[in-house]
């Protein structure tokens, strides 16, 4: 095998240098374009992206060139007869050729990518490019396998060079399309790059196997006998893969069916071992907007929150009319938000004792559901880590006198409550003016009036302080005990480059060690929502450094805030590549900053992160285990217990509690417990 490997390597040793040449050409092109590009409205990073695309295509062509001649070239010249007369088993010959081909491709890719990665600023800063390396490797492996197969059965490299890409395209419309076209999620959680990578990985072995069988068992000389081995093995292998994939898809369908349940919410109170779940009768009842409420018999049913004992499944307490629930970390208190105008609970926020039901404090908030957008935030508020403070947002819409109907002025208040004392602090006041559109679609426009508008807020882990991110890209720290706010960091320019109405969808998520903050900032103009981009930034709090990690379309992230894994280095983004089909999937982005690597001494907590993914009608839950691996759980909004130990989701009206990836369902009505997953 070594002899064949070295021969093939010597034969193709010039190939990697073409990678270096291509890299130099790319950098040259970049240097020529960058000045011209800077004068346009496009970002220079986009130019770097095109360069990456160019390099990727270059690698693909080089791979085809290197793999197509591995066997076919010797078959066409007749040198194969000499090779087969050497005392090397055909299997070793085949492996030698495969390793040589892969090695040459890898060397080419390294020589192509590495210099460009070091030199091109866009690539260097957008380190996520390298994070897609596994996906690229998977894709290349698939193309290589197909090309190797073609090289075995065809006698001319040119034929291989033409046919192999056609087969890859055919696979996209064939086996892959068969599953993907049925609008099913392959693994139930990822329709994005990972799915493609998985397909590439599972399709490669049948082609490798068929190539191996044809080379070792077929004759290659004077006969077509190798076809007799290649085609059945390939067909069998693909059949096995297809069956496996379809089977995997079927397994996940039970969760997808639960999409018929409207959006609900589960909040856990692990300190008291109680869980509260919103139900209407015995079923998940409503969406977050009253207009989308669960209707039966033409009536909007009221909702009830039931407190369930997780051990016995018994109901502890019922509260009618509650819309959202936030349990304090110690489980003693629960904040609830009423959501139905008809019963007068609209906007009513109150905090009460879980067991006794005594109301500690309460007041009325207001917001317009259809315009505030779904953010993944619990509108009943978020508790500080020690359970003393509750932060929530309140919106108030006003109709200024003398303005046309439809024009409104919206006030935003961020409220911080000292829950046990009922003390309320109004932190900020933001104000926006909505002006009715005058165009054909009468798209409303938002105009900022107040100095700032809070886009996102989150409690600092382990401290009685809030991080606040406003629409001017200022990060401030607010301590409710001191009543003081300090600006920590200010970015020159806003995250979003254009004035837009979605800026309040800017989300931040603090890593569990509090050292870095992920910020998702959409960039959109109202007329082009489908083309909007969502940029993900990571801010190192202590150093005040920020850099951009990833870029998606808003359709991919779709209001989904990111989630940090327990290693404080891995960020899960809600990449919803087929959001219009109600499918969702996470994209994992891993930081590559050296400072991050130095701060990973702490063991990873089990179930340390959670991804909220999907649009309003079909969100899905993912549980991250200690290794950062995401497992699909259910189809609606989940809740992670403060200790990261338990997860609650709602599947067709059943409260589902899980530890790790084992999911059991608890029916609050019948108290029946059944195992759902795996």
């Amino acid at each position: 095998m070594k002899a064949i490997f070295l021969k093939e390597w010597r034969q193709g040793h010039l190939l990697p240098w073409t990678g270096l040449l291509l890299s130099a050409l790319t950098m040259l092109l970049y240097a020529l374009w960058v000045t011209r590009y800077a004068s346009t409205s496009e970002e220079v990073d986009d130019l770097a992206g095109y360069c990456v695309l160019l390099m990727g295509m270059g690698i693909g062509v080089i791979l085809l060139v290197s793999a197509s001649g591995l066997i076919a070239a010797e078959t066409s010249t007749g040198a194969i007869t000499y090779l087969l007369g050497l005392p090397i088993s055909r299997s070793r010959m085949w492996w030698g050729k495969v390793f040589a081909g892969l090695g040459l491709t890898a060397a080419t890719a390294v020589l192509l990518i590495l210099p460009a990665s070091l030199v091109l600023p866009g690539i260097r800063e957008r380190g996520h490019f390298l994070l897609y390396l596994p996906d690229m490797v998977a894709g290349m492996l698939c193309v290589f396998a197909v090309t190797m197969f073609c090289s075995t059965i065809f006698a001319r490299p040119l034929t291989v060079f033409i046919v192999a890409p056609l087969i890859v395209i055919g696979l996209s419309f064939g086996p892959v399309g068969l599953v993907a076209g049925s609008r099913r999620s392959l693994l139930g959680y990822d329709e994005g790059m990972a799915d493609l990578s998985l397909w590439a990985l599972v399709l490669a072995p049948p082609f490798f196997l068929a190539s191996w069988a044809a080379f070792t068992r077929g004759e290659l000389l004077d006969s077509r006998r190798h076809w007799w081995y290649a085609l059945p093995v390939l067909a069998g292998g693909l059949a096995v893969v297809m069956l496996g994939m379809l089977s995997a898809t079927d397994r996940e369908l039970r969760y997808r069916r639960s999409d018929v349940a409207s959006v609900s919410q589960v909040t856990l109170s692990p300190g008291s071992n109680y869980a509260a779940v919103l139900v209407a009768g015995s079923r998940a009842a409503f969406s977050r907007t009253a207009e989308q409420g669960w209707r039966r018999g033409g009536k909007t049913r009221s909702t009830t929150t039931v407190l369930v004992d997780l051990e016995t499944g018994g109901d502890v307490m019922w509260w009618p009319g509650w819309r959202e629930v936030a349990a304090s970390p110690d489980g003693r208190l629960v904040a609830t938000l009423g959501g139905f105008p008809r019963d007068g609970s609209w906007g009513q926020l109150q905090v009460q004792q879980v067991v006794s039901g005594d109301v500690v404090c309460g007041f009325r908030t207001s917001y317009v559901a259809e315009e505030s957008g779904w953010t993944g935030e619990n509108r009943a508020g978020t508790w500080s880590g020690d359970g003393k403070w509750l932060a929530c947002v309140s919106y108030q819409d006003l109709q200024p006198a003398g303005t046309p109907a439809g024009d409104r002025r919206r006030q935003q208040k961020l409220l911080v409550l000292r829950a046990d004392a009922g003390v309320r602090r109004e932190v900020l006041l933001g104000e926006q003016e909505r002006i009715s559109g005058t165009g054909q679609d009468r798209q409303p426009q938002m105009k900022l009036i107040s100095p700032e508008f809070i886009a996102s807020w989150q409690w600092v882990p382990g401290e009685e302080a809030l991080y606040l991110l406003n629409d001017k890209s200022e990060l401030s720290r607010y301590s409710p005990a001191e009543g003081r706010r300090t600006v920590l960091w200010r970015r020159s320019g806003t995250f979003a480059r254009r004035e837009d109405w979605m800026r309040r969808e800017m989300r931040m998520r603090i890593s569990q060690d509090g050292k870095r903050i992920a910020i998702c900032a959409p960039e959109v103009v109202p007329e082009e929502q489908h083309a909007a981009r969502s940029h993900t930034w990571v801010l190192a709090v202590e150093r005040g450094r920020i850099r951009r990690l990833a870029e998606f379309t808003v359709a991919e992230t779709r209001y989904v805030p990111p989630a940090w894994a327990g290693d404080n280095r891995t960020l899960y983004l809600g990449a919803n590549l087929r959001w219009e089909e109600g499918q969702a999937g996470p994209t994992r982005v891993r930081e590559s900053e050296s400072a991050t690597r130095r701060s990973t001494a702490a063991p990873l907590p089990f179930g340390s992160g959670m991804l909220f993914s999907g649009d309003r009608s079909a969100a899905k839950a993912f549980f991250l285990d200690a290794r950062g691996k995401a497992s699909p759980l259910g189809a609606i909004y989940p809740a992670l217990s403060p200790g990261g130990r338990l997860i609650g989701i709602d599947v067709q009206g059943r409260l589902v509690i899980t530890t790790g990836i084992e999911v059991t369902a608890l029916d609050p009505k019948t108290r029946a417990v059944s195992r759902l997953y795996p």
Partner: protein
Amino acid sequence: MSDSGYAVVTNRLTKRFGKKLALDGVSAHIPVGSVYGMMGPNGVGKTTFVRCLLNMINPTSGSMRVLGFDAVRESVEVRRRTGHVAALQPLWEWMTVQEFADFVASCFPHWNAASVSSFLERVAIDPAQRIGTLSRGQRTMAALGAAIGHEPQLLILDEALTGLDPISRRDVLESIIDVMHLEGRTVIITGQDIADLERICDHIGFLIKGKLFYEGPLEALKAQVKRIMIQHPSGPPPVIPAGVLRVNASERETQFTVSNFTPELLDELAAPGRVVQAMEMSLENIFVDLVRHQLGRGEVLPALHPEVEVTG
């Protein structure tokens, strides 16, 4: 290493390419230390036979042992002990002759670089020269040089002399004889240049239409197949015995080729007024007569070797 003194033993070896029968039950026995010439017209299965021996292609049926190894199951062992050069052997043109030799050397556990260098020097090939710049004959000689580097027990030259000029051909043949035959190793040469083969082969096999219809020592064949010339200036023509291969008759002279000559035949043909002579035939003439006869009758000559069963 061998089966009862045979380097190669095949038993009813058959190879079919679709509807075409390339080898039809070939049972060959090639003694150790012999220079075995396998002759036959184009397309009769000589190359197929060689490729089967090296397990480049799998026989449809039958079995074969080469150097004591099962040629299918232990093909790597067979190839480790075998040198092989095919007709106009295509090689890797980007390699130099030395790189080619080094590559081949890396495939064998044992390698005699000196003998390769000596051979290349004898045939005037510069090791630094690229194979792509060599003539056809030089490429064949480069392949030959690499084929003897591991001092094989069996050397197979499959039409390898094709394309060589007469001087080179003779040089190569002498080199092969020196290297292989004198050291008790076995050589199998396939080809159509019967004069060359007659000069160096001591065993031959005739392959016609995929069938091995004669195999044995060259001397025995020559003793068995003779040209009988009968001059009968005044008498009637003789009665031609049955089973002759070819007959040429005129008014005064009759010639025919017999494949089972015995001295007694001359006595039987003798008569007053006749002159009966048995003439030695060249291998080429024997081959031509046998092939024509075979093509006409499909008869297989009796084997001149003891039956050897192939086992395993």
